């Protein structure tokens, strides 16, 4: 059964979309990741214009982050003050990002930039995850599973010499507000151009750069992601008219259900094995995208319709 997507202007099988939403939702439930960085390339592979894929995926992430944040707020795992600082940066970054997006669209380079950003981020994230989980597996085998001690928080680094220091009670930190704002700006730009929540950048940055306790990291990042992706959705809808609500809703339905099963399946599998699986998948998507960029196209010329009569 096909459905015609009003904004993507494309006729797609409805079960394919539900299945994709379900599969990515399953993975995001299992691994605890947002899934935007897998869904956007998949949408591009089935023929959704990259611009529509990015903007629509931002809309879907609003929904998936909300359900996550509700759960984390109940457990008091959200640092709202830190979240607000990240958010100020996120709003600035995503607004600039959407502006950059429109400018690149005018130049005819937006599709390339979207795909290149994906290749760069998927290869680095996938590569790091692969190496790290492989090491963990090998270490567990040789040392019989004895854990490696965590490094103490370093209070003498450059990041503690910055001005505008602020106290964050939930995170038990006294650091410069410039740090979370800068992280927010970078993640905001990525969100606008790639249609991702940006958790895969923000979570490591919060742990290693800010030194936040891991318990509040996920909830706080989800809190920021809701507002930043909402900002991206509204701005993309206003400036580029590329948000397809029908597509977003279909992905959402599959995603919500998939995430529930994924979370249960995740509990039965071992952490390192899970992560190495995810890493392989991320690298696979990355290789496919990179291959399409490098291989000589069938036709060197392409067409886009401007307005006017």
């Amino acid at each position: 059964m096909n459905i015609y997507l009003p904004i993507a202007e494309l006729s797609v099988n409805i079960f394919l979309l539900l299945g994709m939403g379900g599969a990515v939702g399953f993975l995001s439930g299992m691994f605890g990741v947002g899934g935007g960085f897998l869904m956007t390339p998949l949408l591009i592979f089935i023929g959704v214009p990259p611009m529509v894929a990015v903007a629509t995926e931002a809309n879907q992430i609003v929904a998936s982050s909300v359900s996550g944040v509700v759960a984390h707020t109940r457990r008091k795992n959200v640092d709202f003050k830190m979240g607000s600082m990240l958010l100020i940066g996120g709003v600035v970054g995503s607004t600039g990002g959407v502006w950059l997006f429109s400018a690149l669209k005018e130049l005819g380079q937006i599709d390339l930039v979207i795909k290149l950003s994906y290749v760069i981020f998927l290869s680095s994230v996938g590569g790091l995850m692969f190496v790290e989980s492989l090491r963990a597996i090998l270490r567990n085998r040789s040392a019989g599973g004895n854990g490696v001690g965590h490094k103490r928080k370093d209070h003498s680094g450059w990041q503690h010499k910055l001005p505008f220091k602020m106290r964050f009670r939930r995170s038990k930190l006294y650091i410069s507000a410039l740090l979370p704002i800068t992280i927010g700006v970078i993640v905001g730009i990525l969100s606008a151009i790639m249609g991702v929540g940006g958790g895969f950048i923000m979570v490591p940055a919060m742990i290693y750069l800010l030194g936040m306790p891991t318990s509040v990291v996920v909830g706080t990042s989800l809190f920021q992601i809701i507002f930043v992706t909402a900002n991206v959705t509204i701005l993309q809808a206003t400036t580029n008219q590329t948000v397809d609500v029908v597509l977003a809703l279909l992905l959402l339905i599959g995603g919500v259900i998939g995430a529930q099963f994924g979370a249960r399946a995740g509990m039965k599998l071992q952490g390192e094995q899970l992560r190495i699986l995810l890493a392989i998948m991320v690298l696979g998507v990355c290789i496919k995208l990179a291959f399409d960029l490098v291989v000589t196209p069938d036709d060197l010329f392409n067409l886009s319709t401007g307005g006017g009569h």
Partner: protein
Amino acid sequence: MKLRLSLSILMCQIFAFTSPALALNEVVAALDNPLVSIDTGFTGSKVLLFGSREVEGDVVVLVRGPSHTEVVRKQERIFGVWANNDQVSFSDTPSFYNIASSDDVSNLVSASTAQRLELGPEYLNAYLAPESKSISNDTKETFWQALLRNKKNNGLYATKAAKVKFLGKHLFRADFIFPSNIPVGTYLVYVYLIKDKKVINSQITPLYVSKIGVEAAIYDFANRHSFSYGVLAVIIALIAGWTASVVFRKK
């Protein structure tokens, strides 16, 4: 587009005044359905044209979509990846172009007539948009051929003329296939009756391609009230996300 339409109307009037036996030469045609509606289940559509000719002669039917400016970009390898580089814009290019004829157009009329009436994609005139006026003729030709090739690959231009079938002496029919990616707008269907290398009569019928129902409502809303649309999209997502967290809470 308007110019072309009024020219064609003028042409019909000239025919009306110059041919004394108009009723005898007349060609009339009608579409089985003048509205191609794009709804939720749209996967493309067939359009059937029926017509009648009063005298023997060949029939050519053209279907032209609304004209737009088309930008053709050439990709080049930059640091190993293929990126868009040079571009040429063509104005007044039909977004959709299909043709059916009872015989090969080159057998029916002279090349100049085919060029004037644009009887087939290869006879379409290329108009450079103001920003591309300075390019050389060779470049223009290369990019124009690329545009035709891309349009054909997308199913928006005819790769070869369909057959106009005669049913008896007077009646004829032509079948057109509209793919699922057709652009919306007002299309014009031109019917030409040709005899002895001359167009002896013609008719123009409009055809509307439009999104209907929910599809149309969403598309219009997204374009006319884009800010409210964005806000609503976010609200829908918020409600959906919150509902999901409530539904699955107990499990």
